[in-house]
């Protein structure tokens, strides 16, 4: 369930390039725009107090799940299935990583067996449809239209 407060992080950088964060909290019932305005106002008030410059601003809403269930035996989180979704030719992919990928979603035969994600697997297809129908985009706000590739990567 959504926690009562959202975390606001103001990212500061000194002359050496080192970064530090000032953390504030705001009510999670507020909209992103409202919290962003609050964060900007807080940052402007903090500027006279520091020799750093503001280089970033983050807002995080957090949900907690209760009761916490223990995972069944399976692959470790280091076994990451990375799926590449494309918005179209010449556009940047959106990359979605799934930790502890099940063996059942991997290709069983051929040169990519045990490494490539089986894009025809029904669970993979269902997830891909949900991603595409849900309007997921790459980092440049280009909405994806197709799942084009997937395989294991060591990303952790």
């Amino acid at each position, binding site marked *: 369930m959504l926690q009562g407060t959202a975390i606001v992080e103001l990212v500061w*950088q000194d002359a050496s*390039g080192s970064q530090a964060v000032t953390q504030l909290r705001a009510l999670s019932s507020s909209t992103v725009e409202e919290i962003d305005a609050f964060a900007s106002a807080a940052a402007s008030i903090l500027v006279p107090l520091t020799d750093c410059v503001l*280089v970033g601003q983050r807002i995080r809403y957090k949900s907690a799940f209760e009761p916490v269930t223990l995972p069944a035996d399976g692959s470790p989180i280091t076994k*990451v299935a*990375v799926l*590449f979704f494309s918005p179209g030719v*010449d*556009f*940047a*992919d959106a*990359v979605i990583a799934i930790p502890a990928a099940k063996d059942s979603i991997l290709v069983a035969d051929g*040169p*990519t067996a045990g*490494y*490539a994600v089986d*894009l*025809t697997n029904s669970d993979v297809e269902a997830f891909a449809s949900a991603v595409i129908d849900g309007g997921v985009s790459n*980092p*440049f706000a280009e909405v994806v239209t197709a799942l*084009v*590739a*997937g*395989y*294991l*990567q*060591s*990303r952790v």
Partner: protein
Amino acid sequence: MANNTFPEDWRDQPCFLVSIPRPLVPYAGGLLKLLEMRGFWATEGDYQRGYTAVTELEECLMATCLNVLLEQNDALYRLLNTALLGVAYTTVSEDPLVVTPAIAPHVNLDIHDQDSLMGRMDRLTQLVDNSINGTEVPLYDYSPSVKALLQSVIDAVTALEGDNSDLLAELEVIAGLLA
């Protein structure tokens, strides 16, 4: 913050094919994650170009490039097998590409269709063997053969009265050419 740049004309530049052992692909791909980070790049433009290039590279590491190469290789094999021996293939599905029959570890010289290159050559061979020499073949049963007919003509001319030695000599030359 890193200050790496990426050229605007990167798509016009040459590419290099790298062979990566399969067990190394997850690590090679995972290391490229660093280049997906905004902080790695100097500007927003460098980030967009660099991110696009590196995710395309990641995409190619296992799936796309190898599949394309293998499929084109298989397509060439099937082209030759159909053209030479007449083996018929059926596309069961386009994506993923499934074609039957599967490519066998080896082939023999069995002709699957007489309209293939080897089939047409086989037809010509059988036609010549049967029609000229009278050899029994599966596809043709011309009778009598050209050689048998010629021999009949020679026998008939020999039986005629008068001097037919010049005509017989010419017919013997033709029979010799067909031998």
